[in-house]
């Protein structure tokens, strides 16, 4: 394909804030969804020919969102332009484009909000930085709201907790409402509705893939580890991102999930109806889609009669499961309405619903129900990349911050050599991989590579200082993104893998000599 070659920015020895390069990535745009993709989701197929119609529809939708979401309303009003967030976004750090500063990304919408919804902007637009919604503004939204990975890093540092992800979601929702959707995300959502997962893998193919996997694991271990699909009466329903079924390195973690359940003697199953943990409805900020996609998990759980619902290694999927499923589907506890109670009385209240696979594995380790040969991982010197949506949008275990400790506890239980990256790049301050939130598409490769810069710098330091050769993570998007982006920075693609890949390597299945 013609176009400038994509090059990784140089790693900086002392990371400093980049100088502004206005419009550096203004032309980096993802493909626009076609009518065939848009219409089945209930969105207009394309932009109206008449601008006024698009304009009115966009402003109308914005008004509706302002009434539906307190987050949007408060965040539009509360920003004082203090600048604390300006150097926090990985896309800004990688590109220097000022519109990738969180506050500037918000202002793309705030300027329009002020013009149409505040007295000051109606009367003195220039004074308060308000502007009319024009086609150029809408195009700018399309560029820059698709250069945000909804990672929430900026929200950690904002004195008012303004979360740019909420504004990006609203921006994308308005774009969809006027027929200006993104091909990548909306095509995937269509596949979930038609087939059941993001990758469009139909039920029979899934069963076939997994029986092949059973044979491979049997050859490797001599054990009959099972990877069942749609087994009624299983105790656990495992919902995992569909990349886990065949992509590398994702499949290695899937093998690990099966081994954990096998070693602990827990019956479990995948579901062909809910063969996707990911929920791109969140990426596009559309509650109806978020809701509809999540219903598949509820339906599968009811049909299969499972007692527990467990979620595999996926960042935003875990955020949706942990923070939103109880609201959307009743998967959780503490409800008193018939819709949710129907499911909650079926689920075993002794367990967290839903649970993260890392919570399950760590509980089993603490109970002494899993045995490991840690030396099996001795060829690996491991670090851990906290995935943004797990870090800042969810929790694991019983206390705030368990989402940082539990994966690390597991790694230390299954491997001897572990080194954390610099503290300002992990935990709640972790940097996004650069590919999350609906930007994991080839035409956005330029910003994906540049957005990975801060993580690559932190990785380079532990590679140099500690000889790290394996970066573990618990997100399908992180795995896919790093596999592609690591080589741009001179690292091996295979350096990234899952936490349960490490578990899989070290776990003893009971037939060892």
């Amino acid at each position, binding site marked *: 394909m013609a176009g400038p070659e994509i090059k990784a920015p140089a790693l900086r020895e002392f990371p400093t*804030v980049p100088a*502004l390069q206005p419009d550096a990535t203004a032309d980096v745009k993802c493909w626009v969804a076609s009518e065939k993709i848009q219409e089945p989701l209930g969105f207009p197929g394309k932009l109206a020919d008449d601008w006024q119609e698009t304009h009115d529809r966009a402003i109308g939708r914005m008004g509706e969102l*302002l009434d*539906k*979401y*307190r*987050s949007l*309303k*408060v965040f539009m*009003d*509360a*920003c*004082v*332009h*203090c*600048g*604390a*967030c*300006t*150097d926090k976004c990985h896309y800004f750090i990688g590109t220097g484009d*000022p519109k990738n*500063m969180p*506050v*500037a990304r918000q*202002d793309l919408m705030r300027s329009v909000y002020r013009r149409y919804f505040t007295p*000051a902007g109606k009367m003195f637009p220039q*004074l*308060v*930085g308000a502007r009319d919604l024009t086609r150029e503004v809408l195009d700018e939204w399309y560029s820059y709201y698709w250069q945000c990975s909804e990672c*929430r890093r900026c*929200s*950690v*540092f*904002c*004195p*008012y*907790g*303004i979360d740019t992800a909420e504004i990006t979601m609203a921006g994308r929702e308005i774009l969809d409402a006027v027929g200006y959707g993104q091909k990548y995300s909306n095509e995937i959502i269509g596949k979930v509705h038609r087939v059941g997962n993001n990758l469009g893998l139909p039920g029979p193919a899934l069963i076939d893939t997994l029986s092949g996997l059973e044979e491979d694991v049997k050859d490797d271990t001599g054990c009959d580890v099972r990877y069942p699909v749609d087994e009624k009466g299983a105790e656990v329903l495992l919902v995992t991102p569909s990349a886990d079924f065949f992509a590398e390195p994702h499949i290695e973690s899937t093998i690990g999930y099966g081994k954990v359940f096998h070693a602990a003697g827990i019956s479990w199953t995948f579901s062909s109806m809910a063969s996707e943990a990911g929920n791109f409805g969140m990426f596009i900020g559309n*509650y109806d889609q978020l*809701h509809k996609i999540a219903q598949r998990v509820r339906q599968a759980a009811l049909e299969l009669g499972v007692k527990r619902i467990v979620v595999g290694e996926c960042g935003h999927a875990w955020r949706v499961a*942990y*923070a939103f499923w*109880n*609201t959307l589907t009743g998967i*959780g*506890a*503490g409800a008193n*309405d018939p819709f*949710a109670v129907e499911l909650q009385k079926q689920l075993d209240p002794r367990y967290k*619903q839903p649970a993260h696979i890392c919570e399950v594995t760590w509980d089993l380790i603490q109970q002494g129900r899993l045995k490991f040969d840690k030396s099996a991982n001795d060829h690996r010197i491991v670090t851990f990349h906290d995935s943004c949506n797990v*870090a*800042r*949008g*969810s*929790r694991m275990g019983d*206390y*705030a911050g368990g*989402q940082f400790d539990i994966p690390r506890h597991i790694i230390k239980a299954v491997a001897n050599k572990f080194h954390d990256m610099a503290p300002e790049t992990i935990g*709640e*301050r972790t940097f996004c991989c650069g590919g999350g939130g609906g930007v994991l598409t080839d035409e956005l490769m330029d910003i994906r590579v540049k957005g990975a810069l801060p993580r690559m710098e932190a990785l380079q330091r532990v590679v140099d200082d500690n000889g790290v050769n394996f970066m573990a993570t618990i997100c399908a998007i992180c795995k896919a993104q790093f596999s592609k982006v690591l080589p741009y920075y001179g690292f091996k693609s295979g350096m990234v893998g899952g936490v349960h890949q490490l578990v899989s390597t070290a776990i003893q299945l009971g037939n060892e000599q």
Partner: protein
Amino acid sequence: MSLLFAILFYVAAAVFVGGLAYKIVDFARTPAPLKIPTTPAPISTPGVAFRMFREVVFFESLFKGNLWIWALGAAFHFGLALVLVRHLRYFLEPVPALIAFAQPFGMYAGFMMAAGLAGLWARRFLVERIRYISTYSDHLMLALLLTIAATGLGMKFVMHTDVIGVKAFFLGLMAFDIQPLPAHPGLYIHLACVALLMLVFPFSKLLHAPGIFFSPTRNQTDNPREARHLAPWAAKLEKN
């Protein structure tokens, strides 16, 4: 002139209270359909109250984000808080002991407030990123606050005004009995700017003050698995 200022303050107070009440009710009425606390977040209500306390009193997130902005912002806000406490003496008769005690601190806090504002304004010129995001209103807001601080300090240290007369004016204002306001150019500018600040408060970024209390990323409890959180408009979707 006294009548003019009296009218100005009645209008400003009405707009300030009415506008702010409207915005607060609007924030409160708008549902938060999903659990979106920025995690790690407190898992209990007292924990959330403590987090909010740290945000409102110590600007915890800003401290994590940028020490310069934190230091200057804190100097301004704490300075302003003390100055406001000091000014209560113009509205209360007799002056409570605590406020009498705070008088000397409030005096120096005025300098702290002005220094913080000057530093914040300087950043809008000197730091490229912040220059980029600054609007005219951001500059004017700082100019307004700095004018208030400067004229206030001026009346204390350079060109005194008749504070007894000022107090009589405001006590009268509160009793709807308009008293003469001492003639003093510094005082006129000071009071006009304060009235203007009250007038723009509900229509400007000064809404960050009530806004923080309604920010879902800060005021929500991290318990989505334990309690079902459902907004009224979202509940309707389940009926379909």
